[in-house]
């Protein structure tokens, strides 16, 4: 009887297993294979184009080649972009949710207003914000209504770069980042377990100091100086994305807050907790899974960002470029299919670094339950 159930279950799942195997994993494999070939250039669009396996040449070219500079800038943009989007959308969404959780007058109205941008497509958001951020319009002329001079900030075309680093020293920068993470993590655990904190702090400090002192001995990624950093022209795009997604995180958090029983809140208040104290010590720890899913969802959205940037600043714009846009142009405009596939695989791997730890932890949780 039990076996029969298993067979039934297997047969029911079989079609989706087969389809997913082909259309998800098969195509990932195919893209990976393409990224190892030299499919591109003249005659790439023939009915049977010539493809030769060249190994990891495309990846090497993207990360260290002379002409990969555009891709590298796009990658740096994407990193800053993800971090700012996460901080902005989660922060604002959380604040909005807390405000609405206290049942102000017209709560339903505000909820609709904040959630509304979510229902728009990115291409619409992009078009709206392109007008809002136009050099002589929108946001820049807001102060004139109050009798002030208009702003001169070029939201989408500024060419200032801050937080610059040399791609040549990529390895050194990476070690610094790892060291910083270890040290911060160490300080966070110092109260709960001093032993563990020591295990984090010591390697962190050693790695950071080592990279600082012997940085010149580390192998260079490039043969020449190449500065990358946070382009201030991306601020406009980040603003538009936060506008679109903070309502969404608000809805997530609001659902979480509403799920906390009123008794718990009343009890906390009775024990003398302030509103701030209630959120800090009770509500926020309880909605931690929501924060994690918001991070996962937003980070992969920021990785596949395409239409918004296309609508706001167009293609070929190094200041606001993004690997996803670069992939499209490389593949469908330059007909360099192999290199486009390589960019796709890089994006896929970055997305995986966010998703896989999440899946592992949720799988573990389910098993211990």
């Amino acid at each position, binding site marked *: 009887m039990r076996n029969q159930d298993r067979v039934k279950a297997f047969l029911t799942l079989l079609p989706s297993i087969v389809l997913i195997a082909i259309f998800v994993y098969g195509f990932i494999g195919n893209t990976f294979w393409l990224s190892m070939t030299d499919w*591109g*250039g*003249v*005659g*790439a*669009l*023939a*009915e049977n*184009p010539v493809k030769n396996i060249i190994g990891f040449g495309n990846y090497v070219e993207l990360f260290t080649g*002379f*002409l990969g*500079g*555009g891709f590298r800038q796009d990658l740096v943009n994407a990193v800053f972009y993800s971090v700012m989007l996460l901080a902005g959308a989660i922060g604002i969404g959380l604040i909005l949710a807390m405000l609405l959780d206290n049942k102000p007058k017209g709560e339903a109205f505000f909820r609709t207003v904040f959630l509304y941008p979510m229902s728009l497509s990115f291409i619409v958001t992009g078009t709206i914000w*392109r007008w809002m*951020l*136009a*050099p002589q319009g929108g946001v820049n002329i807001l102060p004139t209504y109050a009798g002030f001079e208009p702003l001169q900030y*070029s939201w*989408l*075309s500024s*060419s200032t770069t801050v937080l610059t680093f040399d791609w040549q020293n990529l390895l050194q920068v990476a070690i610094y980042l790892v060291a910083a993470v270890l040290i911060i993590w160490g300080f966070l655990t110092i109260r709960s377990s001093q032993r563990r904190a020591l295990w984090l702090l010591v390697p962190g400090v050693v790695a950071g100091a080592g990279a600082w002192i012997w940085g010149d001995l580390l192998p260079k990624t490039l043969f020449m100086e190449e500065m990358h950093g946070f382009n201030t*022209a991306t601020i406009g795009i980040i603003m538009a994305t936060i506008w679109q997604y903070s309502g969404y995180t608000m809805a997530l958090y609001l659902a979480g807050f509403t799920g906390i029983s009123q008794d718990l809140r009343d009890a906390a208040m009775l024990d003398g907790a302030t509103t701030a104290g209630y959120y800090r010590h009770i509500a926020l720890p309880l909605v931690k899974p929501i924060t994690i899913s918001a991070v996962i969802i937003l980070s992969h959205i920021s990785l596949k960002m395409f239409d918004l940037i296309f609508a706001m*600043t*167009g*293609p*070929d*714009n*190094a*200041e606001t*470029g993004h690997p996803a846009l670069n992939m*499209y*142009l*490389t593949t*469908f*405009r*330059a*007909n*360099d299919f192999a290199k486009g596939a390589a960019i796709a695989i890089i994006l896929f791997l970055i997305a995986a670094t966010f998703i896989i730890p999440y899946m592992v932890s949720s799988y573990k949780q389910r098993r211990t339950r």
Partner: protein
Amino acid sequence: MLLAVSPVVQAKELSGDLEIFSWWAGDEGPALQALIDKYNEENPGVKVINATVTGGSGVNAKAVLKTRMLGGEPPDSFQVHAGQELIGTWVEADRMEDLTPLFKEQGWMDVFPEGLIKNIGTKDGIWSVPVNIHRSNVIWYSPEKLQEWGVQPPATWDEFFAVAPELQEKGIVPLALAQNWTANHLWESVALASMGPEKWDALWAGELAFDSAEGVAAWELFGKVLEYTNKDASSLSWQQATDMVVDGRAAFNVMGDWAAGYMSTTKKLVPGSGFGWAASPGTTGEFMFLADSFGLPKGVKNRDNAMAWLAILGSREGSDAFNPLKGSISARKDSELGLYNNYGKSAAVDFSKNIIVGSLAHGVTANEGFMNDFASVMEMFLKSRNAETAAKAAQQIAVKNGISK
């Protein structure tokens, strides 16, 4: 009537559909519509499907076209820039039909200039029917405003550099620039002025390296010109850059002569008094051309209808219906000049007398691969302003895309 005597095209009453794929919309839409009307007059039984994908210079359309062609669903005829953009992409891939029989049958071998046919053909055939000729190296201005400021249109870049700081002091942008591709457009005019027509041709024939002294000098001059452009360029469309000149916020703008169509058709300005023009600085006597043309992909659904469409495009009536509205000139030697405005007449005269060179930004001299990579090189340069590196990068992409060795 040429069409009436054409045996292949008018042999039978045509019916069914005809799907034509282009990036002509908005300001250029009426010109395309004039051609479609002409076609429907001759072939009332055919339903014309106007598959337009908007986006300047075909940025979006080309990508859509590619997915359709690769997916085995080619449009019956598609717009493409004449020259290497078609030849280096679709002809190399063996996806186009040779149109030589149509050219012979319609007597076009004699009415199109020889230099043009050479540019749209290879030793294996002729690959597209040119609808128009555009000039890329034109500088636009408002005569009224220039008079007010006491400035003459510059004949060389040195003359421009002499007046530019003065204009800047008055709060006027000396040279209006728009988003990315218009920087490529400006570059080709500056580079042509810097190296001259023979060296320009040598560059594309692979006889002159991009990182030679001449190549670097072109980037240096370009960097100097950029000093006098508006800072918000990357968020403007080419029309907005033209508007800056019309409104007197900028003194000059280098743009192709579709700007003439925009200013006379959309802005209702009179050529000569409402707006003025000259060859871009340092390129007097040179005509940098680009041509829109239509080709016939292999394996289309309505081949007969497509042939009839191509016949209209190449005909004198079709050409003269289209070009005055588009702001371009006819590719034919026998067009009716009376139909064209003052700008068109002057361009047609220049086309017959000047040295003709091909445009890079609009696909005559290089294939799609090079053009895409060149856009990245341009971005690299706009950021770093390093002429040496840009020239080296340009040479590398030329090698990669089979232009240089």
